[in-house]
């Protein structure tokens, strides 16, 4: 028995050495690069549409009659929230699985391409209906607003694509575990497993929603239960938000310590963060519906509690990250209480971008916790404040982490290197982006507190004094948006450069090592069945009672509306 295990381990270590010598598997790299390439094309297009909106909201740009504000808003949301984030996450984690598990299995790679095909078909359906002006329903596609049925068909393809990638990841992880008995799954692959478990189970709600909407959209049924669709949507929507967050966090835990010359803070703590996020994630949905009627305050309160529970692993992450920074700084000879802060490699964009992401998560997370409260949410719910909030969480925390990963991930995959010149452009991009987002998101927060509504094109409400008072902030918003488009174009150029133009060379996939005196990770962290069962139990606790109430005590359904 022991010899078999040793034999397997020896074989594995030989494989690892081969991988190390030959570098990244080019077939796996191509798949990840296509996903990441698509992500950044969506990023550029979404950014341009964002600028159009910003200028319109400031009253500086009148959109032509053939290009509706809500059409632009829908495309902006779908491209950035659904396409950019999902394709980047999949590309990144497939590269991570390939690197940490000794290459993707041929069938998993094939599944990756099939998934990509399905997602492209989905995006074509969705994009066509939006461009033709038949689906200006925003990325949340709330009924009773009704898009063309083909919009929802596209969403079905997108979700199936996501499922195929999730199963591909599961197959690869199971295969590795079979050949590495008694070992812990590498931490990055552990994060990947958590993310794909969430992607799979989290999308159940939206799948049920889309299957319920389809017959209504085709006209086979007359009415729809609005509150039910919103609830199903947010059971998925909030999970998706945390999937990006978990992806960003994985780069913080694993890549950053290595880049700044530090060590992994604690393998067990990082795994516990993944476990907690997987278990607690799907059940926070109702805090997006705090002012929705038809849900009892008790149920909303339970969801508030469950949402706040997600804050706990975030605090653990914050603690771990600052501990890593301090240790790395002190190792470099930093003195005094905060001396370590100065010796961090601020000029290295691979550190600077994710560091900005982390710093921005402090106000962003605090704002989120504030919004989860009933009374505070009622003040800001339908205002620009919310838009400001998610441009800070997603637009900075997530996007900057993803961009930070690009600087080492893309050259690693293309066997190129990040040149000092490109590093400088990256630093400039990060500064411009941060400045732009601070102006834009700050203005959105403030003008939202003054009552300016979200999801609305520019209007002065008949030159109402209050509405006119918003204008200076909306100007700031437009200035921020203009800076952001510069950042967007720069980022696109950087990705293009790292993919096709940068000089050939070897770039390491940075994986932090544990401290010498690290304690062994407990075995139970590998029991995914238990984690998933706990997750399902929490989901059942959160959703069975309200969903049954919504279905059996349903109000009369709503006919479709076309508001544009």
């Amino acid at each position: 028995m022991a010899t078999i295990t040793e034999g397997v381990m020896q074989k594995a270590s030989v494989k690892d050495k081969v991988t190390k010598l030959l570098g990244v598997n080019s077939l796996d790299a191509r798949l990840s690069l296509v996903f990441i390439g698509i992500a950044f094309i969506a990023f550029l297009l979404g950014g341009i549409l964002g600028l159009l909106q910003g200028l319109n909201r400031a009253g500086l740009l009148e959109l032509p009659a053939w290009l509706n504000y809500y059409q632009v808003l829908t495309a902006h949301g779908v491209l950035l929230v659904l396409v950019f984030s999902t394709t980047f996450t999949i590309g990144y984690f497939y590269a991570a699985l390939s690197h940490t598990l000794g290459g993707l299995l041929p069938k998993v790679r094939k599944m990756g391409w099939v998934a990509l095909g399905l997602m492209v078909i989905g995006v074509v359906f969705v994009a066509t209906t939006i461009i033709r002006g038949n689906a200006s329903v925003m990325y949340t596609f709330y009924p009773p607003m009704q898009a063309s049925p083909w919009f929802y068909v596209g969403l079905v393809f997108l979700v199936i694509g996501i499922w195929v990638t999730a199963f591909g990841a599961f197959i690869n992880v199971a295969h590795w575990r079979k050949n590495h008995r008694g070992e812990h799954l590498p931490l990055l692959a552990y994060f990947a497993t958590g993310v794909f478990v969430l992607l799979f189970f989290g999308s159940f709600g939206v799948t049920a929603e889309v299957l319920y909407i389809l017959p209504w959209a085709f006209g086979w049924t007359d009415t729809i239960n609005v509150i039910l669709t919103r609830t199903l949507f947010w059971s998925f929507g909030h999970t998706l938000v945390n999937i990006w967050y978990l992806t960003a966090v994985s780069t913080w835990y694993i890549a950053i310590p290595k880049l700044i010359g530090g060590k992994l803070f604690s393998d067990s703590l990082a795994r516990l963060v993944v476990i907690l996020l997987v278990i607690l994630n799907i059940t926070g949905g109702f805090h997006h519906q705090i002012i929705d009627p038809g849900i009892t305050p008790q149920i909303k309160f339970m969801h508030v509690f469950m949402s706040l529970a997600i804050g706990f692993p975030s605090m653990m992450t914050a603690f771990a990250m600052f501990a890593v920074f301090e240790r790395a700084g002190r190792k470099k000879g930093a003195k005094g209480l905060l001396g370590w802060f100065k010796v961090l490699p601020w000029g290295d964009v691979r550190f600077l971008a994710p560091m900005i992401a982390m710093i921005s998560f402090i106000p962003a997370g605090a704002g989120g916790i504030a919004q989860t409260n009933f009374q505070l949410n009622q003040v800001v719910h339908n205002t620009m404040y919310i838009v400001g909030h998610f441009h800070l969480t997603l637009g900075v925390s997530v996007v900057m982490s993803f961009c930070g990963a690009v600087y080492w991930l893309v050259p690693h995959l293309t066997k190129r290197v990040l040149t000092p010149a490109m590093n400088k452009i990256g630093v400039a991009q990060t500064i411009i982006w941060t400045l732009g987002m601070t102006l834009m998101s700050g203005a959105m927060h403030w003008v939202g507190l003054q009552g300016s509504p979200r999801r609305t094109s520019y209007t002065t409400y008949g030159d109402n004094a209050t509405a006119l008072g918003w204008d200076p902030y909306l100007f700031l918003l437009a200035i921020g948006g203009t800076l952001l488009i510069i950042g967007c174009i720069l980022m696109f150029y950087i990705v293009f450069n790292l993919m096709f133009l940068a000089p050939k060379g070897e770039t390491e996939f940075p994986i932090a090592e544990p401290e010498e005196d690290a304690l062994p990770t407990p075995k139970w962290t590998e029991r995914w069945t238990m984690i998933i069962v706990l997750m399902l139990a929490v989901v059942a606790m959160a959703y069975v009672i309200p969903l049954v109430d919504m279905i059996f005590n349903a109000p009369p359904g709503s006919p479709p509306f076309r508001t544009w």
Partner: protein
Amino acid sequence: MKQAKYGLVLYIFLMLPPVITFLESVMAIHMHMQMPLLLIVGMLLAPFFQKHFPQFFGTWNKNGVPGITLFMIIVIYWLMPRTMDEALTEPIVEVFKFISLPFLAGIPLRDSWSKLTGVSKNIIYVLLSMLFGLMAWLYIASPTQLCNNYLLIEQKALGWGFLLLAASIVIYFLSTIFIDESKYV
């Protein structure tokens, strides 16, 4: 012994009057949260009793079958709508609930589970999923109120909860058949 301490704390917490009032105010929470938590209390306390009374468990629950039978009897008893009603109206039945679920179901379950053979475990999975499926059908399909204390709509919510529970057990059961855990550890 850490587990036993946690068990005791959880047990005392569940006995607090406001906690009892809240947990029993909704049918699904009563049956699917309070009762399983009481069962978990028993499972957490089990190592303490196993350590102090090894003779007792060795004599009376040698192969795990008596223990699991007792567990099934207690679980089936508490699945009945009538017993839930009684627990709410008769204080003595409420006390019985707080004693029977931890001590006559939770402790025997933990003591028996490791002693049971694979086939017996499979029988329990199948029995429980069938039982929960049956309860789901009863609570969802019943046109009348089964409990005097709970509304029809709460009954339906409980029924759907049972269906999910049954499905979860079936999925877990199938996973134990198709996935050989020993290949991974």
